């Protein structure tokens, strides 16, 4: 069979692909290559002048204690965001998958936060967690008699950021997990039920393994989210404070690049972030291959 039958001429498919290639080239490949190049330069004023410094920027990144702190923060933040948003997402999906009265409303409410703009979410949380006049401390004060300084304590500030990032992304995971749960083969669960498996066993032995392709997909998406999309929360809630305790890579790239005009340093950090995420994704594919069950 001739698979090229759809196209009369050889070059037509290339012409049709051209617009996509141009867009990829201009908006993806060129900036990526440019970032790699810039990371080897000391750049002043957003590129008005630059000089080649080799790996100097990377040397600073790996030896400066402030940058090491930022790397550590990024790992801690990403780890907890991924774990919690997936675990909470799965738990809520299982609950919302039940046909109880008002299930449509529950589902809608669960997905809602995802539809909110991150900037709006950040501002709302800033108001809620204001130590003196926020609603959270007001309620804690009258019920438990405590009023924590959410943004002044390094651990609490990081915990709050993780919480906001998780809250914002759970809806996304719920959408996919509910879709996954709806498509589970009913006969397998039924067989398990007849065999006398408890709900707990049914979930961990049947449902969870059957959901593994979805879990795997979400793991990658959530990792990318945790590394790349937390910027507005940091910018609005803590500005990386108290004293760098919540400064994560994506925020610092912006800061070095656009507030301090250290474009070369920002580029070097982007390269590291890029490599880290590529590495994690490859790792997940390697580890996932044997464990993910695609059914059929």
């Amino acid at each position, binding site marked *: 069979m001739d698979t090229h039958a759809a196209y009369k001429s050889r070059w037509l498919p290339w012409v049709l692909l051209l617009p996509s290639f141009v867009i990829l080239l201009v908006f993806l490949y060129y900036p990526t290559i440019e970032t790699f190049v810039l990371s080897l330069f000391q750049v002043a004023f957003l590129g008005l*002048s630059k000089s080649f410094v080799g790996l100097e920027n990377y040397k600073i990144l790996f030896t400066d204690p402030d940058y090491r702190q930022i790397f550590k923060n990024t790992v801690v933040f990403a780890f907890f965001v991924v774990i919690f948003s997936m675990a909470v997402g799965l738990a809520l999906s299982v609950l919302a998958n039940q046909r109880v009265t008002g299930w449509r409303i529950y589902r809608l409410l669960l997905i809602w936060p995802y539809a909110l703009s991150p900037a709006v979410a950040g501002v709302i949380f800033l108001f809620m967690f204001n130590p*003196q006049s926020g609603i959270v401390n007001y309620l804690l004060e009258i019920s438990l008699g405590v009023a924590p300084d959410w*943004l002044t304590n390094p651990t609490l500030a990081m915990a709050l950021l993780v919480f906001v990032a998780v809250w914002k992304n759970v809806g996304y995971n719920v959408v996919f997990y509910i879709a996954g749960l709806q498509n589970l083969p009913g006969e397998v669960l039924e067989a398990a039920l007849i065999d006398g498996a408890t709900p707990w066993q049914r979930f961990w032995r049947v449902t969870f393994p059957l959901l593994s392709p979805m879990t795997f997909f979400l793991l990658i998406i959530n990792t990318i989210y945790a590394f790349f999309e937390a910027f507005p929360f940091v910018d609005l809630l803590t500005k990386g404070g108290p004293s760098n305790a919540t400064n994560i890579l994506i925020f610092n790239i912006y800061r070095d690049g*656009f*507030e301090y005009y250290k474009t070369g340093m920002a580029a070097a950090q982007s390269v590291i972030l890029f490599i880290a995420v590529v590495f994690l994704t490859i790792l997940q594919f390697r580890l996932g291959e044997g464990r993910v069950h695609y059914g059929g």
Partner: protein
Amino acid sequence: MKRLVTVIGLSALLGFAFAAEKVQITFWHAFGGGRTAFIQRAVEDFNYTHPGIEVKVEYKGSYRDTLNAAILAAKQGNAPHIVQIFEVGSQLAIDSGIFVPIQDFVPAGLEFQLDDYIKPVANYYRIGGKFNSIPWNSSNPILYYNKDIFKKAGLDPNNPPKTYNEVVQACEKIIASKAAPKCITWPLHSWFVEQWIAEQGALLANNENGRAARATDVYINSEAMKRIMKWWKGLYDKGYYAYTGKPEDWDGANQLFVSKQAAMEITSTSDVTFMQNASFENGFELGTGFLPTADGVERNGTVVGGASLWLTKGHPQKEQEAALTFLLWFTNTENMVRWHKGTGYFPVLNTSVKVLEWQHWFERNPAYRAAFDQLLQSKANRATQGALIGPFPEVRTIIENMIQEIFQGKDLAKALAEADAKADQALKRYNASVKK
């Protein structure tokens, strides 16, 4: 019908021809909210009274966003004519090389306006002997206080604290009498630290605050800094000082004060109008006083904060002249009076001050008085001239991180020494990058 079309077509053509004769000037600034409208109205007045020039004004986001946008536009050969740049960006703006030193281009007959700037403002913006930009919005930090809370705490509502110790003493009374849950607030911002250093007559950088020659050493580890930090940390530890936890949170500090959670706030004079309105809405009597200073050190004065207007390079002669005409009009005596009344920013011209005095403005609006007296009483020296440091934005973050570390209990001497080393490092890297 045909004739009608011809007439319309002709008049459209004519209109186009007339419009094309106008010199187009773009002006980028960083004022959002009510101030955008305020500036827009002034620009419309200008366009109406200057038929040959059409100024287009655009709000470009924060000070940093505006500067970034201007640099990028200049890189593409498409720079706006006039850009508002914050004071700590002055050295950076000069180093970037995309602006012209404005004083060299002021047309004959209008130089008098440059001699009209009040001294503290002229001192700040005259760099290397001449104005590189036209001073515009200028401010200082002052103390705002809630007179009702003062009365409740048994304090004299007409005598706000003037020194660090007096603040502590007032706080003791306010907290003990439960007149307010917190005593004092101000945004955790390096700007206040810079001001308190100048008040003590100390410098923030070598080479006379970077004014005699390019600064190569930042003075964070200084006696002046120690006095500030000891006092601030003391207030924090006793629960007198409150802030939202987020650095540079101006709105958060205002909210604490306006909602009567704190009895005092230190913030910019540019908020006088806002504070007067807010105190009226929230039903309390507002007082203003000088920025409290270190005990036992003579009050030296504050540094002018705010921003100035810069003219970019590489425009045709005609456009450059038009831009300058607008700049000098926009900051002339009448407009500075209007600007001051509408915002609280200083009237930066001596003649504007005279107009306001003639109108008995300061007597009728005492809240504006403290702000202005403080500025006029500032001594003119290198300390109050303010530091010129290339990587100032980064140095500010270093100082702010240091403050939070001290709050968390880090040893004062160690925190200062470390921040000092970091700032010097940042300055060294910056200087190396501009020399090439």
